[in-house]
C-alpha cells in the first residue's frame, strides 16, 4: 500500500521486449548470483534459480490480474545488468491511497490483486491477527492458525496449507537485533505508523521449529536496510514517504517533515551534540558512524538520536516552513534564538539527557570555521558551503530509519518452510519479506515467491 511500486522483473517479458531490452531467465540467474555484488553473493542460489525461472510468468500474472505499468524501464539496478524495473500505476481511487501524491504507486499492485482476488471469490479477513500456528504433535503437519479479532479469538483450519506473508521484521527491536545488535529502539521503522513489521510470522513459525536462512543478507550493507531520514523534524521521515495532511494516516504521523534537498544545509549531531560524519554521505559508513558508541555507559548499543542542526538561512534556501503540520513539535523538532539555548531544549523519549548548549555551540563554531576556511578537516565534507549562524536556529529529528527486511524464514524451492533440523514443515509456506534466502529490494521477490508458495500450497492434498 505504501510501496513505490517498483517491480524488478525481467527475463524478456512483454514490456522489456517493447523497450528493446534483451533478457533471459539465465541472465537473471547469472546477475543475481554475482560474487562481486554484496546484494547477491549471500543469497541461496536454489531460490535465485526459481526466482529467475518464474520472472516472466509472474509478470504475466500481474498483468492478467489487472496491474498496469508505466512503459519506461529503470535500470540496470543493483546486481542486474539490464533494465528490469518497471513502476506500477498508482491506484485510481485517491481516497483509498494512504499516502496520496507521493509516488506510492505500489497501491496499484496491491489494490489490483485484491480486486481480482475478490472477484474470484477470495475471502479477506481484516482485523484478524494471527497469534500462533497450530501444528500436529510430533513434527506433524500444520493444521491452521489461531487468531484474535475484535470480538474474541478463533482457530482457522487450513485445508491445504498456511502461507506466512507477514511483511518482515524491521519494526521488532528484539528480533532485528538478532542480525544487528546496534539497532536499538531509537531507530524507527519506515512505513510506520501505517504498518508495523513485527516479525509475527517469523516468530509464530519459529515457535513450531522453523529456521531462519541467509541471515548475512540483512547486514550486507548494499541496499535500503537502513536509510537516511530525508524528511526531517518528524518521527517517521523515510526517504520517499510523506504522510500529507490529507492522508488518513496524518493524525498518527503528526507531521510531514521538512524535505531535504541539499544536505549541505545542515550538520548532523549525535545525542552529545557532536558531529560524527560527513553529512553529504549516505553510505553505510555514515550509518556506522551514526550508530557508533556514544560514550554513554548505560547504553552501549545503538548511537542514540541524530539531530539536524540548521539556521534561518537554511530555511530560506530550502524554502521550508518550520511550523506544524510540517514539523512535529512534540519531541521531534525544536527552535531557539541561539545555538547554546537550542541544545538543552531538545527533549525526546530517546534522548537520554539534554544536549549541552556549550558543546553544541562549540560544535557549530568549529563547523562554521570549516566553512570559512573552505575545508572540513574533521570529516571531509566536500567544500562545506553554509555556516549555521543566522538566528533563529533549529534541531530536527534525523535519526536513520530502517526499511528493508532482507532475511527471514528458510524455505525450499517450493516455498515450504524448513525447520531447524533441515526438514520441511508440512503445510507451512512462506513468501515476501519474511522469507529468507534472497535479498532483492522491492516487490518482485514477494510476487514471485508468493505465487510459488500459493501454487504449491494449493496443490497439497487436503
Amino acid at each position: 500500500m505504501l510501496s513505490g511500486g517498483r517491480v524488478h522483473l525481467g527475463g524478456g517479458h512483454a514490456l522489456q521486449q517493447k523497450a528493446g531490452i534483451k533478457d533471459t531467465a539465465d541472465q537473471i540467474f547469472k546477475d543475481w548470483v554475482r560474487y562481486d555484488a554484496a546484494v547477491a553473493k549471500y543469497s541461496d542460489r536454489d531460490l535465485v534459480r526459481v526466482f529467475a525461472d518464474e520472472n516472466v510468468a509472474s509478470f504475466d500474472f500481474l498483468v492478467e490480474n489487472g496491474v498496469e505499468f508505466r512503459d519506461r524501464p529503470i535500470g540496470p539496478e543493483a546486481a542486474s545488468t539490464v533494465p528490469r524495473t518497471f513502476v506500477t500505476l498508482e491506484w485510481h481511487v485517491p481516497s483509498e491511497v494512504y499516502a496520496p501524491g507521493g509516488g506510492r504507486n505500489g497501491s496499484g499492485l496491491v489494490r489490483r490483486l485484491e480486486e481480482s482476488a475478490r472477484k474470484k471469490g477470495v475471502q479477506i479477513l481484516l482485523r484478524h491477527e494471527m497469534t500462533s500456528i497450530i501444528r500436529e504433535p510430533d513434527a506433524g503437519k500444520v493444521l491452521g492458525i489461531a487468531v484474535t479479532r475484535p470480538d474474541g479469538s478463533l482457530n482457522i483450519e487450513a485445508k491445504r496449507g498456511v502461507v506466512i506473508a507477514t511483511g518482515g521484521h524491521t519494526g521488532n527491536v528484539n528480533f532485528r537485533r538478532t542480525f544487528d545488535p546496534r539497532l536499538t529502539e531509537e531507530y524507527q521503522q519506515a512505513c510506520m505508523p501505517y504498518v508495523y513489521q513485527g516479525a509475527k510470522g517469523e516468530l509464530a513459525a519459529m515457535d513450531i521449529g522453523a529456521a531462519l536462512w541467509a541471515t548475512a543478507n540483512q547486514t550486507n550493507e548494499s541496499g535500503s536496510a537502513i536509510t537516511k531520514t530525508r524528511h526531517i523534524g518528524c518521527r517517521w521521515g523515510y526517504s520517499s514517504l510523506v504522510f500529507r495532511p490529507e492522508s488518513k494516516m496524518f493524525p498518527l504521523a503528526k507531521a510531514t517533515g521538512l524535505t531535504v534537498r541539499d544536505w549541505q544545509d545542515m550538520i548532523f549531531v549525535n545525542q552529545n551534540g557532536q558531529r560524527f560524519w560527513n553529512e553529504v554521505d549516505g553510505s553505510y559508513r555514515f550509518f556506522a558512524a551514526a550508530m557508533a558508541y556514544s560514550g554513554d555507559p548505560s547504553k552501549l548499543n545503538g548511537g542514540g538520536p541524530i539531530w539536524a542542526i540548521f539556521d534561518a538561512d537554511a530555511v530560506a534556501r530550502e524554502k521550508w516552513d518550520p511550523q506544524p503540520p510540517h514539523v512535529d513539535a512534540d519531541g521531534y523538532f525544536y527552535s531557539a534564538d541561539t545555538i547554546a539555548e537550542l541544545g538543552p531544549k531538545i527533549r525526546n523519549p530517546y534522548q537520554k539527557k539534554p544536549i549541552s548548549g556549550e558543546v553544541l555551540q562549540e560544535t557549530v563554531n568549529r563547523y562554521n570555521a570549516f566553512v570559512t576556511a573552505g575545508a572540513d578537516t574533521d570529516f571531509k565534507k566536500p567544500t562545506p558551503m553554509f555556516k549555521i549562524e543566522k538566528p533563529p536556529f533549529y534541531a530536527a529529528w534525523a535519526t536513520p530509519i530502517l526499511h528493508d527486511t532482507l532475511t527471514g524464514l528458510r524455505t525450499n524451492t517450493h516455498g515450504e518452510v524448513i525447520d531447524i533440523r533441515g526438514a520441511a514443515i508440512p503445510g507451512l509456506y512462506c513468501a515476501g519479506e519474511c522469507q529468507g534466502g534472497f535479498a532483492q529490494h522491492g516487490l518482485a521477490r514477494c510476487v514471485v515467491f508468493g505465487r510459488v508458495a500459493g501454487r504449491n500450497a494449493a496443490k497439497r492434498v487436503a
Partner: protein
Amino acid sequence: MTSDDQSHATTIEVIDSAPLEVPAGATVTLKVRVSCPRGCDLTSIPIQIGAAAGALVRGGFATEGDRDDIAEVKLEAPDRLGEHRWSVTFGPYDVAGIRHDAVTVSARTRIIPNTTSLAVWSIPSPVVTGAGFAIEVGAKSSTGAVLAAERLEVHDEAGEVIARGELGGTPYRGTTALYWTNVELVAPAREGLYSWSVAFEPKGLALAHERASTTFSVLVVRPPEHRLIIKLIEKDTLAPIADAQVRLGAYPAATDSLGIAEIDMPKGVYDLNISKAGYEVPTTRVRLDNNMLIEIKALPAPGEDPDAAWLM
C-alpha cells in the same frame, strides 16, 4: 505512628523535591504529601512555607488523580545567589477534636545565576587585509529579559578588546528575545584564519545573569588582483543555470539569472566547486593569473532517488 485516640501522628514527605540548582527568579514546584495514618481528612488545613526573603510562595492542596492529600507548592526563587533552604510545615491542628502533631520537611537548593547566550552572524568571508567590515551580534537571556542597551565586547585571539557594541531595543526578526546590534571591525594586516570572541555580561538586570561568550572565525586574505567570471550552462541545452553555489576554496559566490558568478581574487590556483540540486558539475582546477571568463557545463542529474540506495 498513632499515640492514642486524642492524638494522631501526621506524616509528611516530599514527592517531587526541588532541583539542586535553580536559577534566580525561576519557579520551583514542590510536591508534598501530608497524611494521617488514621485516615483523617486534612485537606482543608493550610500549610506553612518557610522561604527566604524575596521568595514568592503560592499553592496549596491540589488534586492529583484520585489523590487529594498532595500539596503542590510553587515557589519563585529569590534573586540572592547561594544556598537556600525551603521548609514546609503542617500543623499542629485539631481535626474533629483530635490533635495532629506538627511536622516539617525541608529541602535545600542552590540559587544560581540565569544564563545568557550569543549568536554572531552576517560575517563576511573572506575579508581583505586592513579592510573594515561589520558583523551582527545578538544576546539572549534565559529568562527572556529585555537586554536593550546592554553592552558587549569583541576580543581578538590575544584577548584584547577590538570593538564594542550596545544592544538595540528590538528583538531580531523571528526570535523571541534576541537583542542585537551591528559591530564594526577592521581586518588585521596579515592574512590568516582568525578566531575572535564576543563577550557579554549584562549589568542592568534585576535578576542575576552569567556572562556569555562565543567565538567566530574571520578569514583574512590579501587584496584581489583579478576578476574570475564563471558562466554555468546546461551541457545539452546550453541554458544558463541560476542559483548555483560556487566555491573556490574559501571564496564563495552564486550564479545569477544568466548563470554568471563573478569573484575578485588574488592570483593563485584554485579548485572550482559548483553545487546545484539536479546537476552534476565536476571539480575544475583554475589557475588565475589574469582576468578570466570560464564556461562550465553541468550535466543534468536525476533528483535524489530514495531507492537508489539499493544500487551497489
